[in-house]
């Protein structure tokens, strides 16, 4: 049985990789003058696709934490911000102040700093995780919310270090030796390579002793502990891992954007990450890229289509419709859009990892949040 599941994962990963690689290759080789965005009818550009990849990394981590371990985080943008800022600061400031001259200009320095950022963010998550994860449900959500808001506010302070509200500029492009991972077409492969690696790690984890422990903690902490699972330790591990993923995404973001400012890391961003995870389907690793993608596509579609249909400047209407769509998805497909549509297509066939999702969620989350 196990071999069969592993093979199915493998097939999925390969299919996913091939499709993405093919899409990326189109933009490089431009057969018949086709570009990536032309393939999607100019709805999704390569820029958007890279952003989807970056956020997929965050959402996969959030899914481990929320969907599997059942620990709600409304401050995930904070960890994402830490990654972006650590990477941005460490890769520019040292150069700017000529600390370690000669080394900071080398191609591997930013890569090293990405790893350092992941360690720093993970360490931070570990320190705050111990006390904060004692909280449950709504209370945990609010503590993480507070943490995220604090990080966001502080990011706008200390202009000498963070660049203040205008942000940091001059974050270098990444390169391997003399091969620069830019223009975007090259960066696309790096980002999606990382995203797929994170998805593979998540799939492996979910199917392992660790994944089972997390899922057990989600449903019933008491029963998990009675089965020998150290709930506290695994909750902290899940938080640290999700923070490390968020940090990696933040670093990739910083080197993609070339600049880091506080605005993408607001409370709204944290909420949006949760929405993406929920839309994709909690407790579904594959839901992450589709949840993120759908939110982006829906928003871009609204932007272009509303203007055409209503013949108005779409800003406010777009947000109104976006809000309504969000509410509708949550009302009519609470287990996530991808799960719902797949269920619809496959009839009521049961799938691994997300068995009877409705029941899973009402069982797990009601208890956690509803007390």
């Amino acid at each position, binding site marked *: 049985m196990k071999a069969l599941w592993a093979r199915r994962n493998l097939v999925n990963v390969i299919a996913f990789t091939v499709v993405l690689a093919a899409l990326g290759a189109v933009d490089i080789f431009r057969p018949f003058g086709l570009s990536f965005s032309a393939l999607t009818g100019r709805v999704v550009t390569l820029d958007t696709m890279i952003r989807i990849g970056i956020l997929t990394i965050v959402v996969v981590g959030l899914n481990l934490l929320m969907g599997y371990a059942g620990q709600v985080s409304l401050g995930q943008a904070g960890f994402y911000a830490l990654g972006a800022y650590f990477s941005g600061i460490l890769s520019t400031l040292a150069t700017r102040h000529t600390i370690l001259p000669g080394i900071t200009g080398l191609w591997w320095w930013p890569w090293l700093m990405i790893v350092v950022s992941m360690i720093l963010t993970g360490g931070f998550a570990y320190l705050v995780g111990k006390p*904060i994860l004692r909280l449950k449900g709504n209370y945990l959500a609010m*503590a993480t919310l*507070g943490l995220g808001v604090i990080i966001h506010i502080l990011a706008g302070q200390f202009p000498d270090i963070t660049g203040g509200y205008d942000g940091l500029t001059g974050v270098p492009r990444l390169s391997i030796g003399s091969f620069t991972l830019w223009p975007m077409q090259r960066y696309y492969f790096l980002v999606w390579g990382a995203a797929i690696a994170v998805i593979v790690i998540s799939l492996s984890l979910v199917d392992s002793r660790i994944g089972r422990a997390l899922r057990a903690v989600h449903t019933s902490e008491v029963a998990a502990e009675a089965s020998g699972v150290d709930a506290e330790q695994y909750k902290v591990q899940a938080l640290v891992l999700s923070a490390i993923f968020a940090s990696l995404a933040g670093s990739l973001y910083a080197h993609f954007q070339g600049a880091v400012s506080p605005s993408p890391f607001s409370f709204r961003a944290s909420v949006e990450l949760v929405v993406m995870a929920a839309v994709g389907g909690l407790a579904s690793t594959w839901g992450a890229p589709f949840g993120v993608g759908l939110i982006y596509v829906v928003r871009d579609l609204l932007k272009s289509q509303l203007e055409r249909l209503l013949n108005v400047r779409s800003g406010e209407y777009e947000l109104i419709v976006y809000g309504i769509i*969000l*509410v509708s998805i949550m009302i009519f497909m609470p287990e996530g859009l991808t799960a719902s549509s797949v269920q619809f297509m496959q009839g009521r066939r049961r799938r691994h990892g997300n068995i009877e999702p409705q029941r899973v969620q*009402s069982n797990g*989350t009601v208890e956690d949040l*509803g007390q």
Partner: protein
Amino acid sequence: MRQFFRGKIGKIVLATGLVFAAIALCVWLGSRQRLLPQHYVQLTLDGMRGGSIYALMALGFVVVYRVTGVINFAQGEFVMLGAMLCLTIHKLPLPLPPALKLIVAIIAAIVLATLIGAAVERLTIHPARRSPPVTLTIITVGVTITLRAGALLAWGADPYVLPAFSTLALEDHIFRFGSVILQAQTLWIWGTLIVVLVLLYFFLEHTIMGKALRACAVNQRGAQLVGINPGRMSMLSFALAAALGAIGGIVLGPVTRPIYDMGLMLGLKGFVAAIMGGLVSVPGAVVGGLLLGVTENLAAGVTNPTYKSVFAFVILIAILLFRPQGILGGTGQATEEVK
């Protein structure tokens, strides 16, 4: 020693000690900012004004949370709607004397906001009532986005003016006690908080509807068994929360300049106040709101006001970690594990 601090007297001693330590720290930091006694009075008074608004918001959170288990993120938008609707109705060319016109506008705004609150529940929460609270909470985020964008569409991005209740003009009466300043609107805000509390008490204790609401908050299944419709109560709780929010927005209106996005930060702060009060208690919400307002303002005054909002969220996390049951006590449920 540890036993002592766990006992009732020990806790009181500990709390008193902490309060005195906080005051001492405050005075020491204040002296470095060269603050004079009247400054502390001013900071406290203004903190209580802001705190009263937080308290009204916190009450809205508590009412909805108790009945439905949902953290209603749209609470801040109800405040915005209250203020915006009120000033819009007030600007209509009604053939009424100014004072009466304001009163009509206030009542109409509260009624409209209440209806919007009920409609929000019917349209979004009710159809999803079987979903877990986290889903419902996300739904309220969607509602927030929609309401705020709707407000931007309706009112644009410019700030507006709601006249002060005492003067019916932009400029308010100001009472000066030495260099301490008290605006008449501050008194209106405090008075409103008291009146709202009395009405709320009367409603919850002495009306059938209020009793049903309380029953539903204590035990939903039990309430259902005695014939209370939890769906109706859920709608009622949203309507009540919207009314509380709108009242907060209306009395706050004259001291701020209402704008379409005013609900965002107010909502978060009101939420912090609700948490300080334990999220389930009405008196807790009021004390939490006032305490948050005063602490935040004093802390900003004696240190760097840039970090005012940071203080609020640090308080949030500290309360959650050390006193998840809220400052007034009771049994905690935040870390409770055993079912």
